[in-house]
């Protein structure tokens, strides 16, 4: 168990060190998310529609689309120079590789989201501070589900020539329950509803998080094997 945890930590450490040196992933995700929000700002007339009604959808489109960029890089980085082969040769449970990559993806995406939130608040003139705790819970649940499924599918897509196209095509349809859940919950939070009003959505999103992680644990061994 100790080796399992230290292997997960080693993968996260390696990804963080690489990112600190290259800054490829964060800068690409952040700029893309910012551009998505700016495009919507100019295309939506906020004097006609309420920012709190269109905002949740726009926020999650920005998170998910930019997150897909990060996921695409996640296993492609491992394929360069045959690094994935090197990982497959170590005496590690394949699920350690999956969890290491999942945590890395989750950390990078969450940091990007935390940078985007204040900008979203300014551009849409919405006060997120009074709803911060429930909003962070929803972001945690949504990001976890997205990364859990995305990490699995990016490992699958990394073997394909058309990986950049295949990942979103595979990912978004299966992610629909989580997307609906987090967008609805974000809307309710911005409308000032208490968390207790959305327990069903929280339950649904958390259930899908668990399902995606469970399916990944069961299938990652076969997906990583050539």
């Amino acid at each position, binding site marked *: 168990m100790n080796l399992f945890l230290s292997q997960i930590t080693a993968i996260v450490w390696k990804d963080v060190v690489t990112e600190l040196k290259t800054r490829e992933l964060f800068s690409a995700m952040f700029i893309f998310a910012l551009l998505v929000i700016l495009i919507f700002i100019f295309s939506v007339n906020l004097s006609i529609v309420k920012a709190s009604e269109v905002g949740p959808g726009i926020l999650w489109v920005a998170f998910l689309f930019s997150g897909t960029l990060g996921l695409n890089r996640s296993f492609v980085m491992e394929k360069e120079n*045959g690094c994935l082969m090197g990982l497959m040769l170590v005496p590690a449970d394949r699920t350690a590789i999956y969890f290491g990559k999942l945590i890395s993806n989750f950390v990078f995406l969450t940091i990007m989201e935390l940078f985007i939130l204040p900008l979203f608040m300014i551009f849409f003139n919405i006060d997120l501070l009074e709803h911060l705790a429930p909003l962070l819970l929803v972001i945690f649940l949504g990001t976890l589900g997205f990364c859990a499924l995305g990490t699995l599918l990016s490992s699958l897509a990394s073997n394909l020539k058309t990986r950049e196209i295949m990942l979103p095509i595979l990912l978004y349809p299966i992610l629909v329950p989580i997307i609906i859940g987090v967008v609805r919950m974000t809307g309710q939070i911005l409308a000032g509803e208490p968390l207790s009003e959305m327990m069903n959505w929280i339950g649904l999103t958390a259930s899908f998080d668990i399902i995606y992680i469970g399916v990944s644990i069961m299938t990652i061994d076969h997906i990583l094997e050539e």
Partner: protein
Amino acid sequence: MSDNPNPSDSAIEVRQLRKEFGVLKAVDGVSFDLKRGEFLSVFGPNGAGKTTLIKILAGLTRPSSGTARVAGYEVAEGRSEMRREIGVISHSSALYADLTPMENLIFFGKMYGLDHPKESALEVLEDVGLAARRHDRVRTFSRGMLQRLSIARAILHDPSILFLDEPFTGLDIHASNVLKEHLQTLHNNKRTILMTTHDVSCGLEMCDKVALQVMGKFAFFEDIKDVDKENFETMYFDAVRNNQFTMGIRPH
């Protein structure tokens, strides 16, 4: 080298090993034994199935049929214990280009569960003569340095068996000689080595056993002392020429 729970004399035992990709037989009924500390050089034209054989023995891909035991462990079972006993050097370096050699080796050391990954990393870097470049990014390394760093990665956990897939490819004469010295040292340290190569003189010079793989099969497998080197060279070049005909390439 770590203690093996199976005190068998054989490091590698292969019986009727087959790997098929659709109609293509990449490995076709290969059988051989390699004792502990022996060095086997496997020659063969491109597409003969040498890399696939190494991938099967390293547990990277499953055989279609047949059995292979490495360090006493059944390869198809994919045991972690077997992976502790082997090191692999392939065409690609399996190193992260944006990390330094130290960072790469410390990472792999942690993945292998070494007690002192930093000390082990420094030790193997000194062994392969790259200690002075330990803080440079791997991206800046030449092909020869990458290959030496690959050796460092492969021996970091002190494996008893090494699989080398065409390690001399793309190296200049100096880098080849340096690599040859390293391999000789590893062999002298009683490591079992299976190497695929196109470099006939080098492969024959270092090995204890020789094999020629053609169209997935072992067409030749002998002790080096029973091999007439000139005859073997002729046989190898014939195999390569015939393979070129098969692949539709006209020989000069």
